[in-house]
């Protein structure tokens, strides 16, 4: 197991270099950011040249990339064009997004899996049909619609919560955004769990367990659920990355200054250090989440062994 993890970690290095280069290349392809810094005025060539030189924009692309990566390994992520160190921006944005994503994953795991087990065990009955119908509706409504509707109803109409999250973004204010963010994935988790549970409920080992006279609760949790969770874990693992990088819609609706907002702002201003910095961390998160999923397989299913 230990060797497997080390091998996977080593494999991450080329993946990491490749993805960061792609991102760097794409942000570069957006064009020259310097003209926009001057607003509606044409940049005077001398100042523009000076800025380009300072940001290494006058060098060939590969050299810029090497310089940038060199800085990253010394912990310097560069500065956004408004002079704020990208590291500072990350320090502010990441904790907020991580809180939001954790809450969302929590909702998915607890509510999604519970609903899935309940409907999977009662396949074909009213509960099951109801869950299937509701999840279908949730999946087909885009996130920004649920976001705006819930924000208007709970925030403006009934005044239960503040419609926008304050800049400190404490846990309690993030509950509504996390629900909105989690809803679609929650529906998928429910459906995945339901199918998996329904299938395994007729498996031989469950019949054996029932024949042995094990209590119903133990059969469901220890035997049935554990074997049914593999596809769900795969989905959740990938979803963690999605929730962090893809929270941009939810973050905009609820005015959360997290990773999504910084990325959006960076792309709009063609601000390479911000975009590449944030995406680099996102890439790491994705890679680690994937590794975690693979390791969890072995924990869930003893038949899976890594050498």
């Amino acid at each position, binding site marked *: 197991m230990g060797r497997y993890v080390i091998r996977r970690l080593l494999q991450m290095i080329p993946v990491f270099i490749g993805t960061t280069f792609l991102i760097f290349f794409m942000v570069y392809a957006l064009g020259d950011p310097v003209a*926009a*810094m001057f607003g509606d005025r044409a940049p005077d060539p001398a*100042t523009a040249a*000076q800025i380009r030189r300072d940001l290494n924009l006058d060098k060939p692309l590969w050299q810029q990339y090497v310089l940038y990566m060199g800085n990253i390994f010394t912990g310097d992520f560069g500065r956004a064009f*408004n002079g704020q160190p990208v590291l500072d921006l990350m320090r502010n944005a990441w904790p907020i997004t991580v809180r939001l994503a954790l809450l969302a994953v929590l909702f998915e795991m607890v509510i999604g899996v519970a609903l899935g087990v309940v409907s999977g065990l009662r396949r074909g009955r009213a509960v099951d049909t109801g869950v299937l119908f509701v999840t279908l509706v949730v999946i087909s409504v885009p996130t920004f619609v649920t976001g705006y509707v819930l924000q208007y109803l709970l925030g403006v109409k009934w005044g239960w919560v503040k419609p926008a999250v304050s800049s400190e973004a404490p846990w309690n204010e993030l509950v509504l955004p996390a629900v909105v963010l989690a809803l679609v994935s929650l529906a998928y988790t429910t459906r995945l769990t339901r199918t998996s549970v329904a299938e395994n409920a007729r498996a031989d080992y469950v019949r054996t367990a029932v024949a042995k006279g094990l209590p119903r609760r133990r059969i469901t949790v220890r035997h049935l659920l554990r074997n049914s969770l593999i596809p769900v874990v795969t989905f959740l693992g990938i979803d963690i990355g999605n929730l962090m990088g893809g929270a941009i819609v939810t973050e905009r609706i609820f*005015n959360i200054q997290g990773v999504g907002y910084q990325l959006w702002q960076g792309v709009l201003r063609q601000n390479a250090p911000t975009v590449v910095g944030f995406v680099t961390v996102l890439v790491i998160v994705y890679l680690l989440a994937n590794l975690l999923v693979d390791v969890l397989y072995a924990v869930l299913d003893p038949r899976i062994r890594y050498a």
Partner: protein
Amino acid sequence: MRRATRASWTACVVCAALAATGCGSDSGDGGGSSGDGGDDIVTAQWGDPQNPLEPANVNEVQGGKVLKLITRGLVVYDPETAEPQNMLAESIESDDQQNWTVKVKKGHRFSNGEPVTSKSFVDAWNYAANIKNQQVNSSFFRYIDGYDEVHPTDAGAQPSAQKLSGLKVVDDRTFTVKLSQKLSIWPDTLGYPAFAPLPQAFFDNHDAYLDKPIGNGPYKIDSYSKGSSMKLVRNEKYKGDDKPQNDGIELKVYTDQNTAYTDLQAGNLDVSDELPAGQLANAESDLGDRFINQEAGIIQTLAFPLYDKGWGGDDKADLRRGVSMAIDREAITEQIYNDTRIPAKDWTSPVIGEKGGFDDTICGDLCEYDPKQARKLIEDAGGFPGGRLTISSNVDTGSHKEWMDAVCNSINKTLDKENACVVNPVGTFADFRSQVVDREFTGPFRSGWQMDYPLIENFLAPTYYTGASSNDGEYSNKKFDDLVDQANAAEDTAAAVEKYKDAERLLAEDVPAIPLWYQNGIAGHSDRVSDVMLDPFSVPNYPAIRVD
């Protein structure tokens, strides 16, 4: 127009006061929560500034809001009339319009206790002009003698001097300025934030300054959490007349205008100065008299690429004229912008006033919708170059896609053709500006101008003078340049304005760009605050806001 706006203003204040007393208890709950910590703190909408918060490095409105709160220059513009008035300057005098003597008022201090002296200005301006400091607004100092030495124009050139030779400190409260040419309106330009003084602390510890800028304005920065909010409190050392009527301002970054609007309705935000375009139709009924629609110094024009053979040249002036007359400005401003934009009648803005050079007769027929005449002009000129007119603009802000579609519709209808005019939407402002600067457009493109200071000069010289920094269509007319030069050298402002207007009349003949509409400032406020108004730059006049 001006008088009408003001009258409705008074009405607004009265209504707001009535509304506040009428439902006082109700609004108290919603608003109270936003003022956490402070007593009468006003929360206001903000966006992340684009550049570092140095006075000469801020050229967009979000950073400008902060500078307006924490700095004051030699001159300020009256928030209602836009008229320049001396603020820190006791006097700015010259016998020849070229050598100026500035006397600084006594007793003004920065929020860290340092006195504001003549050195605070001279040091700040030297810093701003020096190319090594990469200030995006350094061109504002180009009229000062010695600018070419500290700011060579060639890319890669090194400055041959570190300080502007035209600036001399005489004593603590006096300094002299030698300009490289006569410029009668020079003192009136000094209200632009780039001319603000800087404390010694700026130079001693630059990083600390950027972390938490220090100024001499009515407010000082209490805390700044980058990318999300800035809290400002009253600067007790401020001696100006416009002392704050509230205890402080909290600027909150909103990632989405719709969210800000929702927060405004829920009472969590007091002042929003960027209402989403989609809500303009509802805003008036949602907010009632808390909705502000006020003239601002912004004009949108459509510039022609005169560097392109198809559009440049004198013989093409009638073609350009035809395009202008094919646009139904009235209908577009009413239907797309709900009358928050006014069809333009000249190349300036009504906020500068008739005394300042605004004249709604200058554009004349050129700005009138006349499909018959337009069609004749375009057909006589042989139609559009390449048979097609392509309009370009960035579409990430300001509902630009919508008006471009409408303008094209109007032109297509005039010519009775399906695709005579097509729209070329550009994804981001950054990309759009790069393409403009590289002269890549071969059809007319959007050219917006938000004034830096409320003078007619600012609407004409930077945009239409030969080789000027925002002359993106490369318009060049010797007569126009001469008139601007004469205006700059005129004895007084009134004489200068007349010359500028003569120059502007040439634009109506040559049509290098067609005026579309004047853009109003739009804002809304909660019922917790009153006396909210926008200044001529469409920025809320924060110090005057009262918390009820």
